[in-house]
């Protein structure tokens, strides 16, 4: 006797209850607080903010907790929340030249105005597991510099003074596009492409960037500058007639400088790849800059020969919320399509067998 499976609703309810139980785990262990997550897993928060495309540490912490530490799930939670937020307007372009710098390095100049600043980096740490961290050993306060630092000009501006590097792309007279409000269309402009990259999956962009270094569209890059720090966000107030600072965000900016021999479209000069992400995420910003430069092939008259240069390929596949949704949708029922394919395979096997029995030639040529 067959009774169609019912009770999907109950199954879902129970599954979610179990999920909540597993998320909490052993009740005798204190629950994580959001503050603990924001303070002690700060780089996880930064990744969720940058790929979730929403600058809010508390919501990111909530998402990380709710997602049980699954970063892509946390990013998804933040994105789904972000879409529902009303749009008040667009900020003025942030001035990264006026950044309150915490870290700033250049691989192209030994010394430069504003200096090199290592900041809170994993670089040069020896990757030895530190048993002290298993406990709660006291951590000494950080050294602080005295007074306000000098304004550190961007390395790209130094090169621009000599005309050796292409300018910042022509100051756009129109508003930049907005990939969250307008449908994406290929070929893309650089503004919307950068937006997509900025929220793109770190792992995917990292792998593509790496491929350019290994010869799949080699771009001769130098890390012109990487800077991390806070910038002011200003919004133009039509009522007041000027822009008002509404807060600060932490950003990581990377300017890659690429040697370029010139083409029919552009003279020999240094060209640039640009990376900008929320929070502290140097790896992502650098990967983004390499990918940006690779995808400028069309604009610069280079041959498109490698995956990283293929804008439609990269942009269509860099969003981890889209990618994980579609990959994981395969676990949804596909009975109906499968049934159709099952019937087809049965028919074809029957035909195959009758041909064989009839002694007809086996390579299934059509009649």
């Amino acid at each position, binding site marked *: 006797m067959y009774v169609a499976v019912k009770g999907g609703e109950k199954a879902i309810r129970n599954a979610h209850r179990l999920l909540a139980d597993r998320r909490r785990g052993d009740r005798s262990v204190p629950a994580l607080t959001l503050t603990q997550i924001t303070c002690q897993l700060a780089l996880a928060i930064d990744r969720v903010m940058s790929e979730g495309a929403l600058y809010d540490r508390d919501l990111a912490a909530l998402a990380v907790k709710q997602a049980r530490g699954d970063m892509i799930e946390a990013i998804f939670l933040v994105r789904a929340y972000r879409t529902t937020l009303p749009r008040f307007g667009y900020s003025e372009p942030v001035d990264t030249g006026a950044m309150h710098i915490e870290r700033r390095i250049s691989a192209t100049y030994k010394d430069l105005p504003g200096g090199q600043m290592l900041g809170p980096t994993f670089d040069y740490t020896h990757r030895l597991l530190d048993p002290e961290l298993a406990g709660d050993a006291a951590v000494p306060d950080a050294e602080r510099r005295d007074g306000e630092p000098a304004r550190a000009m961007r390395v790209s501006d130094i090169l621009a003074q000599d005309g050796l590097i292409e300018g910042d792309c022509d100051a756009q007279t129109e508003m930049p596009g907005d990939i969250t409000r307008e449908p994406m269309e290929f070929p893309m402009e650089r503004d919307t492409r950068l937006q997509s990259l900025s929220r793109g999956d770190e792992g995917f962009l990292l792998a593509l960037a790496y491929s350019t270094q290994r010869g799949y569209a080699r771009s001769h890059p130098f890390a012109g500058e990487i800077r991390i720090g806070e910038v002011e966000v200003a919004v133009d107030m039509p009522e007041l007639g000027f822009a008002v600072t509404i807060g600060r965000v932490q950003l990581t900016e990377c300017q890659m400088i690429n040697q370029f021999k010139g*083409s*029919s*479209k552009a003279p020999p000069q240094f060209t640039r790849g640009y990376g900008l992400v929320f929070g502290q995420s140097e790896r992502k910003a650098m990967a983004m800059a390499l990918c940006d430069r690779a995808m400028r092939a069309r604009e610069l008259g280079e*041959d498109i020969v490698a995956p990283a240069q293929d804008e439609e390929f990269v942009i269509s596949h860099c969003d981890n919320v889209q990618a994980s949704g579609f990959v994981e949708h395969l676990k949804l029922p596909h009975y109906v399509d499968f049934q159709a394919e099952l019937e087809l395979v049965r028919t074809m096997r029957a035909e195959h067998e009758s041909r064989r029995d009839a002694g007809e030639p086996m*390579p299934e*040529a*059509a009649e």
Partner: protein
Amino acid sequence: MMTQGDSVSPHPEPIEGRGETANPPLRQAQGDGLPALAEEKPLLSASGVSKFYGSRIGCEDVSIDIWPGEVVAVVGESGSGKTTLLNCISTRLMPTTGTVAYRMRDGQIRDLYRMGEAERRFLMRTDWGFVHQNPADGLRMTVSAGANVGERLMATGARHYGNIRATAGDWLGRVEIAEDRIDDQPRAFSGGMRQRLQIARNLVTGPRLVFMDEPTGGLDVSVQARLLDLLRGLVTDLGLAVVVVTHDLAVARLLSHRMVVMKDGRVIETGLTDRVLDDPRAPYTQLLVSSILQA
């Protein structure tokens, strides 16, 4: 992209020997092409065509007429602008300046670069053919030979599988590919077979004009000879007009009625093939002919 390493390769002996194969008399295949002849109008007429790649010259100020049923060979050393010119007159590459006019089947003369893309694509898959040096550029490598030949028919509305297949089979026969290979993919074909398949795919709609860029380029000498023979037969039977780019003067002699000699992007000599090869006028052509044919 344009440098396929197809430098001028002096064949010790021009294919099939010089004396044996006389050129077909000009427009011999125009038994049914007489009306076109009577109209005395070229099929395609390019004038003042130039293409610059940045400051580099691809081709400059080229004017050329292609008449119905005639085979025109464009020759010249590597980098002289042959491919550029071919692409410019076949709408594959937008010229920097100049116009290209084409006489449509209804007799109307149209400026190719003023046509809409839909009309241009339609023209390209009905009245024209384009044979690439590398067959992979002109074939769908992952669909069967039959579908490769049938595609143009289907694109222009053929909806009877049996008829499409029969026509494809017939064309495979005409290019000397055994019928039982009809369901094989070009991947399973030799270089010469691929090239013949590409030709069949182009000719199936009965085009009036076919462009070819080094159609025998990647093939070895004996395979080349067979392909050229086949091409010559088809061109004659069908009364095709052909523009064939080649750096090989033997190919030009065997196939073409008329020759266009290019150097540094410019046309430096044109004339009947026999005349140009036997009595070259421009010093460069003299050099070209002597260095290759007497080598």
